[in-house]
């Protein structure tokens, strides 16, 4: 479980990693203090100016105050502008630092076949929580706290009692109320989580299975189910909204209380002759300007709840112990050409043993199909052969270079050529074209493929992955095909397999598959369940 302390430590580390990080933070906070302070000072000095003017002194006596009023009038806008700039600069720097740290941490752990898909996508969004935390929580919170203190300290010159009362009310309205509201609305929001999850699942199901639902007449039934989940969610969200409304009302009442206290305390001081009459307006009008600062706190508290959850997930990733080797370490000079497994058992270093006693020999030019139900440990075996994770026991002899073609290889949002160069970063343009041609990809290497290879068909994407394997100067003598046609339509799959078996014919092929057609192409079919450890998973 990640605590607030971990997040504080993370922020301290990110700050320390920035050149002059603490100084940047201090400057940003001071600018924010200046900006909020200006609007409070504008009200206070204006009130004093009017009251003083009502005493009809020579105009000269008012000039300083008049200049002050104009200065604060300008200061707020200017201060806010520079505060936002320095604050965002710092926040973006910290975001970069966090992205790099997250990436470094993730890249140290072997991710292949770990069903991390959702986590990987989520974490990239979670990292952005740091910007919110800096710009919308830390800066407003620190600056507002300073403004409270400063305002109370200055008002103490006029009336210590009123200053104390104002300070107490500020603590209540600015800190206690937002804190309670955030706490209660978080409890309400947490109660809404199951309903929210259910709603997300239902929407996902409808979005993915719409054709089947429509074809089998389930549309109305599904919409009714959706509406009833939606109603449940509305009920649980209602409490949160109620709390937030009450918090706003409490802040308004607090402002009123501060104004009224100032009137009572100030008027008594004036009529007792303890305070000049002109100071009363200052005491009464300043709390009005503070009201906006209270509202900032509520916003900060709500943002804190959100970014805290996001950053807690990031911290979890950063703190996780690496599993496996992360990057595959290939020894290009290894003399081993075939694959020899004797009495090998495999499993994730942090998980149970999945397969044990595996004996397998595969020479270049041979092909073997590995079959067995999902979850048996097929991809785990592949990761072990590639040296991404250590074998639990037994002897693994594999070539230095092992080609690997997965179900849906990631296609990066760059050019085709750069995607192919993932396989060999030093590949020349000619080598890239050659690899693409061999992989049956007759496209412009400079073509940009778009996000997740959006402009490629499933078959083309798999051919890009094949070109990566072929881009190495010396073809690998062992290639693992991990359900290479699972997401392809029939004809595309057949065409790809024809090309695969032709271009990779010289290598040993280890084929993980469910597909009867693909099994038929292999020299041997081996059922992995003979080596499964323990009882059947399903």
């Amino acid at each position, binding site marked *: 479980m990640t605590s607030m302390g971990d997040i504080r430590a993370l922020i301290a580390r990110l700050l320390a990693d920035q050149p002059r990080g603490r100084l940047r933070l201090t400057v940003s906070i001071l600018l924010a203090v200046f900006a909020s302070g200006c609007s409070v000072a504008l009200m206070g000095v204006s009130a004093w100016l009017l009251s003083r003017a009502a005493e009809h002194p020579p105009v000269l006596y008012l000039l300083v105050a008049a200049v002050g009023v104009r200065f604060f009038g300008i200061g707020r806008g200017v201060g806010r502008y520079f505060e936002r700039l320095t604050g965002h600069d710092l926040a973006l720097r910290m975001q970069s630092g966090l992205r790099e740290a997250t990436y470094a941490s993730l890249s140290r752990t072997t991710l292949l076949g770990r069903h991390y898909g959702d986590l*990987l996508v989520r974490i990239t969004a979670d990292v952005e929580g740091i910007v919110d935390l800096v710009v919308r929580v830390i800066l407003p919170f620190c600056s507002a706290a300073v403004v409270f203190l400063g305002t109370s300290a200055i008002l103490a010159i006029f009336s210590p009692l009123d200053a104390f009362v104002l300070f107490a009310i500020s603590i209540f309205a600015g800190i206690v109320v937002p804190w309670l509201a955030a706490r209660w609305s978080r409890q309400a929001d947490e109660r809404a989580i199951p309903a929210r999850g259910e709603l997300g699942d239902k929407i996902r199901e409808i979005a993915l299975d*719409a054709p089947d639902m429509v074809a089998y007449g389930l549309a109305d039934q599904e919409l009714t189910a959706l509406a009833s989940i939606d109603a449940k969610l509305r009920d649980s969200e209602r409490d949160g909204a*109620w709390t937030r409304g009450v918090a706003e009302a409490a802040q308004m009442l607090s402002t009123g209380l501060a104004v009224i206290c100032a*009137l009572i305390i*100030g008027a008594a001081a004036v009529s007792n002759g303890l305070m000049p009459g002109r100071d009363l307006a200052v005491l009464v009008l300043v709390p009005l300007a503070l009201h906006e600062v209270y509202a900032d706190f509520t916003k900060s508290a709500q943002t804190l709840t959100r970014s805290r959850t996001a950053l807690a997930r990031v911290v979890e990733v950063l703190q996780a112990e690496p599993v496996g080797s992360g990057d595959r370490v290939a020894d290009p000079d290894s003399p081993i050409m075939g694959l020899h497994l004797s009495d090998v058992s495999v499993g994730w270093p942090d998980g149970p043993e999945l397969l044990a006693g595996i004996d397998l020999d595969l020479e270049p030019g041979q092909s073997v199909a590995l079959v067995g139900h999902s979850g048996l440990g097929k991809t785990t075996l592949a990761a072990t052969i590639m040296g991404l994770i250590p074998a639990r026991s037994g002897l693994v002899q594999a070539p230095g270079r092992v080609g690997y073609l997965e179900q849906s290889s990631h296609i990066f949002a760059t050019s085709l050529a750069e995607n192919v160069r993932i396989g060999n970063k030093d590949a020349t343009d000619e080598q890239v074209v050659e690899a693409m041609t061999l992989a049956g990809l007759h496209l412009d290497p400079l073509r940009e493929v778009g996000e997740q290879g959006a402009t490629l068909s499933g*078959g083309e994407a798999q051919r890009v992955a094949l070109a990566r394997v072929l881009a190495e100067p010396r073809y690998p003598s062992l290639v693992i095909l991990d359900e290479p046609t699972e997401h392809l*339509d029939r004809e595309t799959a057949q065409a790809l397999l024809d090309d695969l078996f032709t271009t990779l014919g010289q290598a040993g092929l280890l084929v993980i598959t469910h597909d009867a057609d693909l099994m038929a192409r292999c020299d041997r079919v081996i059922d992995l369940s003979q080596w499964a450890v323990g009882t059947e998973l399903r």
Partner: protein
Amino acid sequence: MAPPLDPRLLKRATATRAFLVAVALTGIANAGCIIAQAWLIAYAVSGVFASHSTVFEGPLPSLSAYIGLLALVFTIRAGLSWLSSWLAHRASASVKSQLRTDLMAARLANPRDTSTTSSTLIYLATQGLDNLDGYFAKYLPQLVMAAFIPVLVLVVILGQDIQAALIVAITLPLIPLFMALIGVATRDQVNRRLKYQTKLANHFTDLVTGLPTLQVFGRARAQLTGLKLVEQGSRIETMKTLRLAFVSGGVLELLATLSVALVAVSVGFRVVAGDLDLTTALFVLVLAPEAYLPVRLVGVHFHDSADGAAAANSVFRVIDAVAAPPAVPMAPPPPKTSEIVFDNVSVHYPGADQASLSHLSFAVHPGEVVALVGRSGSGKSTALNALLGFVRPTSGAIRVGGIDLADIDLDAWRRQIAWVGQNPGMLRGTIGSNIAIGYPKATQSQLRSALDRAGGQDLALDRPLADDGEGLSAGERRRVALARALLRIEFGHAGLFVLDEPTAGLDQASEARVVAAVSASGVGAIVVSHRDALLKLADEMVPVGSQPAAAASSEPEGGRR
């Protein structure tokens, strides 16, 4: 900038209209409270100032009367603020529910609409629409308040002091004017900033989701250097554009506070000259910021609204894309006895380079098995989609027993069809419950028999299926879907098989059973397949896509989901 108030939100979401009226009413009440509050404060302070006592001349006899009324006013304002946030939540919640349901109904009405991907749809229906909370809770109320409060406050100030009113009247309209001018001047920069930030975020997401692939090639750690360079470069660019983008917010704040300062100095100098009394001066000073506050908050909350408005916009695009059903749908003729005719049917998905299906004509006589053959991307699956009414032909027509499919009640038509798609959908539940979709009243033994005949003798009926049938291979999914279709023919009295590669990935023995089951049913079938065993069943082979086939990528269902 998006329009401040999307008329489609008003039109579609009935809750919005009542909400706007309520917000306007609370806005007016709030303005009244603000004026009363300023009046009470001004008289109370100047009363004490003039008499140096808590009992003084003025409209009210003593300070305690002012305090009592002030307490009342603040209580009312607190109540109003609670009320408006409550109303906002109610409106937001009901608009969200309505749009969510409409969105998913639109998806079901247009099940093959690939212009909005499933993941976008999921995002829109959940987080996307949640952004409407900001729109309803903050932006819209402020917008309404900005329409009432400044005007009311200005009128009151005008009644007190013409000079101060002039300052407010001149500077107030400057705010939206400057905002608009700066908005136009910096729009390119702001868009560029968004592009940089999106690009940066996408680059990072791309790298992280591609990590497993990078690790296999031993390239993951090496990318860190590149990431650092990209991060640094993009941050510098982003900051450059931010310097301009923040100008509009800065000017907003500057105008609002500077105007208050001008008012204060102006009334101050007239008080000292004796042209204005303190009460009026204080009254104007307390009111002046209130005239600017709603306008300023509109600017502040604009971003809260932008995400929500953008989500609503995308939702409307999906909803509006649904074609209207026939006004008076006709009952479909039973396919067991009716001829099905494809008459020069073409389908061109909006936005696609080429037609997905062009000029297909053939006829299926009752009880006949017709196989569609052709290269990948020639439009075979699209033809089946058109037959099921998932897509409408762009030109040409499909006729059932002489009636155009466009005039037929599609739900009733689909009840007559047993369909198996290329990548069948699996609902949450068990394998058994997924088969029972074909005939909900089926007994366990009927389910078992259907699954066995579909080649799924190894699959357990009670095997739970989680999200989207995870853990089932594509071949296993097809077997479950085929069992579903068999039930629908045998017990649901459907009269036509529509099968898209039903035996792909099956071994020969399983395939033989499937072929036997289909032919034993005795009903007609339209089949897409490459397997000889299935093609042998066909009474007729229809070539699809005679001209050079389109690239596989132009056929949406051939790509990735």
